[in-house]
């Protein structure tokens, strides 16, 4: 059995290497071009710094706003997708819908929303909301499934309504987890939002793509450096906040 799995795995990988044209010689031949690319990026052209910074601000805005809206929108979905609190007729359809929409990436949503509402940061926000809502809902649901049922019993026994039970028996148990998931999503959304500009959905990605197309590598490298700094700052702030939660 194990041998068969290993054999199938090796065959699959070999076939994939052949089918994608993976070739170490080709890679080696490309090295000079990579070096040339890097050489042309140095020194970065700091004249484009203002527009790179403006793009970075937009990207952070897209991620922040999108994550915030999704964090709230995911709440009801999270509760109906938790086996231990949702009635079965709600739970199964909710899980199916979430799994379906979650398999579509932010960038694909961005293409759809750019077509729907036009170019700019707004379709980017919508794309972040669409993906993050379903992915947070899944995380929320799993957090709810892991709670201690004791307080839920106790609140139920007081004669509380179902919504009161969720608010007093469930929410206090999962809130720190929820906040930590939201921050984690914010970090990944910053990264996802950097490429949204490639498809016209606003932010720093627009500048990166523009300068690359213009073969202005010195300008592109400034944008790249700003992107790296932005991601590192957001990650740093976010992970510090998360440490406080746990």
């Amino acid at each position, binding site marked *: 059995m194990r041998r068969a799995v290993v054999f199938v795995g090796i065959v699959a990988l070999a076939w994939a290497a052949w089918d994608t044209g993976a070739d170490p010689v080709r890679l080696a031949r490309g090295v000079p071009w990579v070096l040339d690319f890097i050489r042309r990026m140095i020194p970065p052209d700091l004249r484009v710094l203002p527009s790179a910074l403006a793009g970075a601000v937009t990207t952070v805005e897209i991620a922040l706003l999108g994550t915030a809206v999704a964090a709230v929108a995911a709440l009801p979905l999270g509760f109906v997708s938790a086996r231990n609190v949702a009635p079965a007729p709600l739970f199964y359809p909710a899980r199916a819908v979430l799994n379906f929409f979650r398999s579509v990436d932010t960038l694909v949503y961005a293409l759809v929303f750019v077509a729907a509402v036009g170019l700019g940061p707004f379709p980017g926000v919508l794309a972040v909301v669409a993906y993050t809502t379903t992915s947070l809902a899944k995380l929320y649901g799993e957090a709810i499934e892991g709670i201690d049922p*004791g*307080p839920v*019993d*106790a609140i139920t*026994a007081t004669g509380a309504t179902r919504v009161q039970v969720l608010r007093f028996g469930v929410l206090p148990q999962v809130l720190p987890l929820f906040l930590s998931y939201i921050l984690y999503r914010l970090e990944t959304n910053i990264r996802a939002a950097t490429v949204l500009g490639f498809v016209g959905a606003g932010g720093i990605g627009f500048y990166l793509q523009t300068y690359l197309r213009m073969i202005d590598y010195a300008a592109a490298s400034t944008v790249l450096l700003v992107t790296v700094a932005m991601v590192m700052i957001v990650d740093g702030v976010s992970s510090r906040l998360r440490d406080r939660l746990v």
Partner: protein
Amino acid sequence: MIEVQGLRVVLPGATTAVDGVDLTVRQGEFVVILGRSGAGKTTFLRAINRLVEPTEGTVRVAGRAVTGAAPAELREMRRRIGMVFQQFNLVRRASVLENVLAGRLGYVPALPSLVGRFPQADRALAMECLAQVGLARMAERRADTLSGGEQQRVAIARALAQSPAVILADEPTASLDPQLTGSIMDILRRINVERGLTLVVSQHQLETALAYATRIVGFRRGRVAFDGPPSALSPAVVHAIYGDGAPA
């Protein structure tokens, strides 16, 4: 006060936890349910307020049928049935006062309660209940910073805040150090005597049951094996309740 007839509870997995129990508890009684673990004590108590759905039989509390009640009606009846759990079941991250206020959830306006707003009268009542268990000065502390014995007293205050007619207590001292058993049972007795509240408390400790009960009901394999005053509990009866295992 509590009338149980022909109660059977089959749990998921086809275990019959309660197998045909008839029991009538009168107003003001302090009933201790005795039995080994697995005898059906917990399931019996949880079937009274329908935390566990009875498979067969009827339960009436204060003259009204709990079994068959519609959801809204059931919630209204649950307000009058306080419950104390072996694991306290407090909301650990909430304050002591917030935990006691939870006992008022069935009475207060629903929407304000969801944002944590409770009428002044309910806050006052919650503080009064905390004072009764001797923890008024701990009101603002987070529940999980209290000791086990204190947490159980908060849980009793929460049940009292419901203005209940009945309190069900499921092994309220089993998770505590033995020397705390008396303090918790004393509080329950005081509630019983001073307020005339009906108490049904499950216990696996024979000595504790004898010291506090006005009536003892012995459970064995989901059935009532003994029902009478503590004085009638002979060694033969104890043997019948506990079987071959020694009383723990």
